[in-house]
Each structure stands twice: as structure tokens, then as C-alpha cells.
């Protein structure tokens, strides 16, 4: 549409990227300094590197299991929420069930709850109500995957609804006329067209689960602890280990970046789709 040279955007993006990256750069600075060197007149450039924080992190075998837990819980939760959300949105978009708009609004109210006070009932439910013999949901990955649905599933529904609504109904109807089953229509007609929305939903639900702290801190103990709770181990009455916390965070950026890289392609795919459709 616009005829400007594409290069004029670049300086703008360099400035924006600098602002975006600065706190992350500073996180790195903190991770390669002993705490005592942070307590001085700050210098914007790094002059020396101190790797002890990283050796400490690499030697911590517990952190590795936290990393695995975090990956499983956030990926499991993101896939579950995106899938359930997609089907829910399809139902809300294509069927004329009575009260469906109220249900749509109700789902999002689950995300509004201030988390602190809901920890006690969740703790009680997971230890005493949702149990099967000796198995309780407390401190399990599946338990956390389900609990995270309370804030991620409404999110998925709300971000996917405009996308699903935006797919013209005529496409479904044409497929039905051709004798396709509902399953086929959903998976082969609607689903591919929703890819940009699904990709964004997947990324963001993954991020919310990956970053969640309060629920994980209360509802996991030994087996399903996540990285964020691992970070909080370094906030104690004796001291906060800023350097180690920062080093762990730098490490946690790596898997997150990989997941981002994998999913972002589909947003680009969506871009071409938009162009073709036009």
C-alpha cells in the first residue's frame, strides 16, 4: 500500500529495540557481577566478567528438574488451553445455543480473581477433594496444568473468538454441502485459517504459564516445582542472591526463545495468508 522505502523503518526499530533490550541487558550485567559490585556508582558498560553465578547455576541439579517441569507444565497447559479454547470458540461462533454470550463472558471472570486468596481453596481442593486413593493433584505436573487453565483458558477463548468469528461461515457451509463431517470442517477448513490466532494464543498462554509464580509456589513442593519457584529460593531473610537469580533468568530465556522461534513462523504464515485472501 505504502510506497516508502523499507529502510526508513530500520532506525526506528533500532531505537525501540534498544529500549526493549536494556532491562534484559541489565539482567545480564547483574548476572556477571558479584553482588558487592552492584553497590557502587553504576557503569553502563561491562568491564569485567564474573562467572561464579553461572557455575553455581550449572552445578545445581535441582534447577534442571525445575526446568523440565516448567517446560512440561507450560507446554502442556498451552496446548490444552489452545485446543479447548479453539473448540469452545468454534461452538460459540457457529452454534446458536441459548446463553452462549453469557458463558463467553463468564469464562473471562475466572481470570479476574485476585490470586492470593484463591490459594487456600485450591490447596484444599487439590489435597482433599480431587484425590484418587493416595494420589492427589498437589505437587503434580498434571495438577498444575489444570490449575493454570483458570487464567489461560479464558485468555485463549477471548483471543481466539475474534479469529474464529472472522472466518466466513460460507466456507464451513460449502464444506458441509460437499458432505464433510463437522470434525473434518473444523480440522481441515477452520483450523488452518486460524493459524495466526492460534500461534499467538499458543505463545501467550505458554508465556503466562512459564512466568506464573504464586500458584506454583503454593501448590508444588518437591516433584512439580517450576523455575519461578526455584528463583524465589534465592530471596531469603539472609539475603537475596541477585546474581544467581539473574543467571538463572538468562538461562530461562533460552528455551523460551526456542519456543518463540518455533511458533512465530506461523504468524508469518498468517501474513501471507492474509495477502492471498485479499
Amino acid at each position, binding site marked *: 500500500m505504502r510506497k516508502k522505502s523499507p529502510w526508513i*523503518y530500520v532506525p526506528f*526499530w533500532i531505537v525501540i*529495540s534498544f529500549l*526493549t*533490550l536494556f*532491562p534484559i541487558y*541489565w*539482567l545480564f550485567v*547483574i548476572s556477571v557481577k558479584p553482588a558487592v559490585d*552492584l553497590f*557502587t*556508582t553504576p557503569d*553502563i558498560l561491562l568491564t569485567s566478567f564474573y562467572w561464579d553465578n553461572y557455575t553455581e547455576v550449572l552445578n545445581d541439579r535441582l534447577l534442571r528438574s525445575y526446568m523440565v517441569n516448567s517446560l512440561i507444565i507450560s507446554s502442556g497447559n498451552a496446548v490444552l488451553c489452545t485446543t479447548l*479454547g479453539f*473448540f*469452545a470458540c468454534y*461452538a460459540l461462533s*457457529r*452454534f446458536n445455543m441459548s446463553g452462549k454470550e453469557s*458463558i463467553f*463472558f463468564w469464562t*473471562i471472570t475466572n*481470570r*479476574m*480473581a*485476585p*490470586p*492470593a*486468596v*484463591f490459594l*487456600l*481453596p485450591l490447596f484444599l481442593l487439590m489435597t482433599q477433594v480431587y484425590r484418587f486413593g493416595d494420589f492427589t493433584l498437589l505437587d503434580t505436573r498434571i495438577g498444575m496444568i*489444570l*490449575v493454570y*487453565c*483458570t487464567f489461560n*483458558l479464558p485468555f485463549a*477463548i477471548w*483471543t481466539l473468538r*475474534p*479469529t474464529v468469528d472472522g472466518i466466513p461461515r460460507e466456507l464451513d457451509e460449502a464444506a458441509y454441502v460437499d458432505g464433510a463431517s463437522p470434525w473434518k470442517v473444523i480440522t481441515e477448513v477452520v483450523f488452518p485459517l486460524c493459524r*495466526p490466532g492460534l500461534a*499467538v494464543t499458543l505463545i*501467550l498462554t505458554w508465556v503466562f504459564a512459564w*512466568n506464573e*509464580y504464586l500458584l506454583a509456589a503454593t501448590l508444588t513442593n518437591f516433584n512439580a516445582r517450576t523455575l*519461578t519457584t526455584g*528463583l524465589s529460593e534465592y530471596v531469603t531473610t539472609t539475603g*537475596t542472591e*541477585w546474581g544467581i*537469580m*539473574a543467571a538463572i*533468568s538468562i538461562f530461562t*530465556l533460552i528455551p523460551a*526463545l526456542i519456543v518463540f522461534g518455533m511458533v*512465530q513462523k506461523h*504468524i508469518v504464515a*498468517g501474513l501471507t495468508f492474509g495477502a492471498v*485472501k*485479499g
Partner: protein
Amino acid sequence: MQSNKLGWLFLAPTILVLFLFGVLPFIYVLWVSFHQWNPFAANPNMIFNWADNYRAVVFDAQFLASLGATVAFVFFAVVTEVIIGYFLAQAFMGDFPGKAFFRTIHTLPLIVAPIIVGSVWKLMTTPSIGIIPHLLDNWFGLNLNIGTSALAAFTVTVVMDVWHWTPLVTLTLIAALVSLPADPFEQAQIDGAGPRQIFWHITLPMIAPALVATVFIRLMDALRTVDEVLMLTGGGPGSATRYVGVHIFKEVFPRTNYGYGSAISVIVLYLTIVVCWMLYTGLLAPRKGKEG
């Protein structure tokens, strides 16, 4: 048209999960909110006290102050995020060298956990040893002290939130913009519409559902903010950044004031629902009516 039974079948898992992990805990909180209950009181048991907690909340100056600060925080943070987020999303629509690279960089803040965000911003803004006050002092002679100035602390929490969450707005709006059909835009250009007219009459109405959804998400998340602010200022200086999420956290965690904390939570939840409902019906429903 397919039968509605199939629709309910598609919705059922969602309703079940949200009922088990959302509704049941809420019922428990509601029940607790009608009790006086602090496990370290002289009487550690739950004592039914009708609506005493709710009556107390209405006159609780600290809670009201906290609510006021929260509204200001949410307003400034969300408005800034939506405006910046929209412009960045628009800018990503064009083609330019290094686009994928810049987009990845722009999403990085999202993957930093809130407790880390709070820690980094604390270390960046601590008076005398933080880089930001240092640079502001060197470049502009400004004195930024988040330990004593309520305004400074408030501003830093807003800036921190904008830094952390604008990428979310950008991402959801990119998804909305890329799925827009091209015809109306081409038609409008043929008809000679200016960019401003195109924005108000075509782009905005078409992305409104996604925009409203995004505003909602940011609104309710900002209202619930705990980790970042707790790490950054602890709610201080004084009570300047003791937003409701932090206030509730301090009531129910260290103070173990379960009964009263539950009542506050129910009220906050109620207010959030009302505000969102008004926004929802005000912004979306009339348009839907027009279309239908």
C-alpha cells in the same frame, strides 16, 4: 446447521475445568468472606459474622486508598500499552529489512518472569546505585528516588508494566491485523479516503473485538499485579504502590487475615466484573446489534 448438542459438547471440557478450578474455589472464598477468621487470633476458628467484613471494607481507608492507586496505575499502564502496542503492530505490517529479528526482540520482555522483572527494575532504580537515577541525574539533573517519592515509584511501576506487557498487545493486534481482508482498504483508497478516515471507519471497527479482548486481558492482569510490584517497591514508599493485588497479598499471606482478605477479594472481583461488563456491552454489543 448442526445441532446445538454438538456445540455443548465442544464447550463441555472448558466449562468442566473452569468449574472445578475456578467456580468451586470462588464459592469457598465467598463462604470464608462471611467469617471472622485469622488462624493466629485468640480464637483460631472461623466465626460466622454475617456481612461484617464487607461493612468494614467500605470504611477501610487503606483499602480505598489502595483501590484509588490501582485505578490510576491500571489506567496509565493500559492506555499507554494499547497506544504504543497498536502503533508497533501497524509498523510491523509493513515490510522492512530484519523484521523477524526485530519482532523477536520486541517479544523478549514477555518471557522474563514477573519476579525477575521486579528485581531487575529494583536494581536499576535504587537511589545512588541504580543506572536509571544515575543517568537521569547525569543527563538531565533529575533526581529519581523511588524510595521516598510516591510519584517516582508510581511512574516506575507504570513504565515497568508498559515495558513488560506492551509486546502482548502488539502480538495480539498483529494477529488481528493480518487476518483483516484487504478489499475494504482497497475500496476506501479508491474512494479517496485519508489514513485517518481509514483508521476510524475501517481498521478500528474491524479490529475492535480483538482490541477489546486485549484491553480486557491487560486490564484484569494489571488489576491483579502482585509479584513485580512486591519485588520492586514492596508497596511503598508508604502505601503509594500498594495496589489491590499487593494489599490482598499482605492481608492474607503475612497477616493471615483470611476472612477479611476474602471479603476484599470478592469486592475487587465484583468491581472488575462490573467494569469489564460495562466496557464489553458499551463497546461491543451495540456494534454487534448494528451488524446483525
